[in-house]
Each structure stands twice: as C-alpha cells, then as structure tokens.
C-alpha cells in the first residue's frame, strides 16, 4: 500500500506538531502556509533578531525538518474544487493539492471591535502591531497604549517594551475579580506562571489597568490620543500608537467550506481530532482558543491519527485535557463586558473595506440584509473583520462561507503556468 498523502494547512505550533507526527509515522506530508516562513502567530519569524530564536520554536521547526515533511510557504488555500483537492494561490498563480488525509491547523485571528477613531493610521491590532514589529517596523521611543482583552496584551506590551517602546499603559477590559480564578489557576501551570512573571518584569512599573477600556481614538491624519474609561470616569492619554485587540476568534472558514460541522464558533472534533468529515482532522485554535501548548498536543494527536496510529497515547490525552481546561478558564476570565460591544457612534465605520457606518447598518435586520443594502461584508476581508463587529453590535450571525475564501489576484486567472491538475503534494 502506498503511504498516505497527508496535507497540513497552517504552519503554526499545531500544524508543525501534526506534520512531524504524521511524517515520523510513515506518511508523505506537505504543510502549506500563507506566510513566507513557518511559525504561525506565536512563533512568527523576527527579521530584526534572526539569531535570537525561541527555543520551543527552534525545536519544533528542527523536528519538523528531520521528520522529512515538506514545507510549502507562501501558499493560501482559496477553494475546494472537489472533495479531495484544495486550490492554493501562490504569488499570482494557482496550484492544486490532492490529499488522502487533511489536517486543518489554520489558527485564529484577533477580534476587533469598532470604536470612534479605530480606522486612524496609528491604530493596530495588539498581535497585529507585534507582527509588524517582527517584520521590521521600529517602535523605539514611540509612546504606545495597549488595550482590549486577553493574555496577548501583556505579551505584546512586554515585546514592544523590549524593542524600546514606551508603554503608556496596558488597559484590560476584564475586571480583576473576573480574572482572579484564572490567575489563581496559573499556580497549577508553573510554566505559564513564569512566562507571565517574565512579562511583568519586562514591563516594570508600566500600569496594568484592569476593568478599563478604550472608548475613542483622536487625531487628524494619524492617532494623537486615546480616551479610556473605567465606567465611572473617563480620561485621555497622549500616544503615538494604539495596539488594540479583544482576544481571538478562530479561523474556521476553510473547515466550513469543506463541510465540517461547527460546535458554536469552533470546529467540532472527536477524541482523535477528526472532524465530522472522514479523513479531515483539525488541531489548534480553530477547535478552541487555548494557547500554544494546547495547539501542539492537539497537533500531535491529529498527526498520529492521520497516520493510523490509534488510539492516541494516554499521556497526550491527559495533556490535551489539562490544556483544554486552561482554555475554558481563559475564555471565562476574558469574557467581554457589554460596554465594549457598543463603543461605535453613529458615524463610526464598522465595515472598513466598504466604509459602511454604524448608522447605515442600524436599520438593517440581519447580515444578509446588510450585505445587500450597504455592501457591509462584501469587500476583500469577506466579513472576517466586520463580521465579529456586527455580531457584537447587532447579534447578527454570519451566513454560509463561500469560495474563494480570499480574493484572488486577476493574474492567477491569466497565468498559463497555473497547474490546475498538479498531482499530489510531492
């Protein structure tokens, strides 16, 4: 029997672990990612510190390479032309990939909530600014407010501080009381506690204001100040940049296009990380937001399952359960307060692609109605940003996912070298 061809989508911690496990157990494995390098979000390559490798990242990438799996970066999956093929767009041309087993490790993105001023240059996502800094954007000497919710805020603030930024304040919308059980539970996860302590040390005397959130950003051409509140009083701080994100939302669009069942917002998986569709597995953030350790253990279980090494070892199952519990505490601790869902004013742009304002959307009855009448969600982000926003503002549920998953450059249709029937991954 020929070895199974396993295709892994997403080269973050989950994808790397999955590809390594499947390849070590006899499969032919190819892993695709839309970024120029492997690592996903947490292990995004830092161009300014090429020699300063995170040991966990270095180990995962070395294991991946020695396993014999192939990395195919710079490729974005845009469509599912038939049940066992995927269409990728790579630098303006198409490629088709066949698979026997498919592992989806597409990660998560930040949740953005609109507030007056959020479209000004100088306002970024929290992880977004971190990614830009890793891509070479210098922030030394810049005054930065970090705001929103989630453990990412402290990680980002510490990172920006290391690059010489002056962190004006870190504002976390969750109250101390709400976060207390989570903080206490960290005592059971010494690794995570140490990481948190490291961030605090880097941040020194930088304020961490819980129960506070941004209500507007001011500036003409670019951001000059941010107004914050704790619900009782408001105050304005001057700054050069605002890094603002409200925790994470899973990237489930590809899974949905493949017909995988969702459970709430997440991809439903069984004990072997298999989705509702036979032969398709899912690991990491699309199955629940629980951090890097959860992503790695789920990835390994998925990789083993795709290689028919079942049942999964009990030590992996125990680790997965522990990390899932961590994820549930995380979600609970950083749940959104109602006030942050309603920050937009009448003139605030909600759909950034098509510049649709809150007042234009207010009179619409649902997502489809809004799309038809205002073009909200019809732009190139295809509702990935405004969808979470309108869900928060109006409670609208997004309707079904359609191909292409991302806009395709016209050149891809004209390129004769596009291999619409390329054989398997390798």
């Amino acid at each position, binding site marked *: 029997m020929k070895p199974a061809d396993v295709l892994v989508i997403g080269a973050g911690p989950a994808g790397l672990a999955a590809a390594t496990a499947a390849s070590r157990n006899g499969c032919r494995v190819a892993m695709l990612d839309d970024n120029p390098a492997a690592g996903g979000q947490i292990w995004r390559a830092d161009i*300014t510190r090429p020699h300063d490798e995170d040991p966990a990242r270095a180990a995962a990438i070395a294991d991946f390479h020695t396993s014999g799996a192939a990395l195919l970066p710079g490729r974005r999956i845009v469509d599912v032309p038939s049940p066992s093929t995927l269409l990728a767009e790579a630098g303006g041309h198409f490629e088709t990939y066949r698979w026997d087993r498919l592992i989806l490790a597409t990660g998560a993105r930040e949740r953005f909530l609109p507030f007056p001023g959020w479209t000004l240059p100088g306002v970024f*996502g929290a*992880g977004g600014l971190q990614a*830009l800094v890793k*891509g070479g954007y210098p922030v030394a000497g810049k005054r930065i407010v970090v705001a929103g919710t989630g453990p990412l805020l402290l990680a980002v603030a510490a990172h920006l501080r290391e690059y010489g930024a002056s962190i004006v304040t870190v504002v976390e919308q969750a109250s101390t009381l709400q976060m207390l059980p989570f903080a206490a539970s960290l005592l059971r996860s010494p690794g995570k506690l140490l990481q948190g302590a490291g961030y605090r040390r880097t941040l020194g005397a930088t304020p961490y204001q819980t129960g506070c959130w941004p209500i507007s950003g001011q500036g003409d051409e670019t951001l000059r100040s941010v107004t914050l509140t704790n619900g009782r009083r408001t105050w304005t701080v001057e700054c050069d940049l605002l890094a603002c994100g409200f925790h994470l939302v899973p990237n489930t669009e590809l899974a949905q296009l493949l017909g995988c069942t969702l459970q709430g917002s997440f991809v439903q998986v069984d004990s072997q990380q298999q989705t509702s569709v036979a032969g398709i597995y899912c690991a990491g953030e699309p199955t629940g937001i629980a951090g890097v350790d959860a992503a790695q253990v789920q990835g390994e279980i998925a990789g083993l399952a795709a290689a028919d090494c079942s049942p999964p070892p009990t030590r992996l199952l125990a680790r997965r359960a522990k990390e899932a519990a961590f994820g549930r505490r995380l979600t609970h601790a950083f749940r959104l307060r109602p006030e942050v869902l309603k920050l937009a004013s009448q003139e605030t742009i909600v759909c*950034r692609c098509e*510049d649709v304002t809150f007042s234009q959307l207010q009179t619409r009855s649902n997502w489809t109605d809004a799309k038809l009448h205002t073009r909200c969600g019809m732009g190139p982000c295809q509702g990935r940003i405004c969808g979470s926003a309108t869900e928060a503002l109006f409670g609208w549920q997004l309707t079904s996912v359609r191909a292409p998953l991302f806009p395709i450059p016209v050149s891809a249709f004209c390129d004769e070298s596009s291999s619409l029937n390329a054989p398997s991954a390798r």
Partner: protein
Amino acid sequence: MPDQQIVIHVNGSPISVPAGSMLSAALLMASAPCRISTTGEPRTALCGMGICLECRAIVNGVPHTRTCQTVCQEGMRVETQS
C-alpha cells in the same frame, strides 16, 4: 538588526530598509498609507497577518497585494492604492 540594507521605492521616493523587512513595515517607516479607502481615508496595516486586507497596495504594478505578507526586495516599487 540584519546588517544589509536594501532600497525600495514608496510612491516614487527611495527608502532604505533592513533586508527581510515586510513591505507593510516599510510603508509605516515611510509614513505612507497602504491604501485610500472608498470615502478617502488613509489606511495602514491593522491585523499584520493577512486577514483584514487594510494593508493592500500596488506592488510592482500589481494591485491588491497584501503588504503584510510580502517581503521587501531590492528595487521593489510600491504605491498607495486608491
């Protein structure tokens, strides 16, 4: 910092950036918007990870290029997209 610098052209003006920089970062260094929105607002990168498409610009003549997933190359020409 990587030692090597390369030159790219942002809206016609040359700027020197560290080799390996993302184009979105280079546009921020040049204080140039990536695109002008439908109502005329300047926009720069938001998510940094290929999702929001606020960072799209015209790169070597190709519009709608996500600059946050494009590495700068010597002599590259990038223009704000409107």
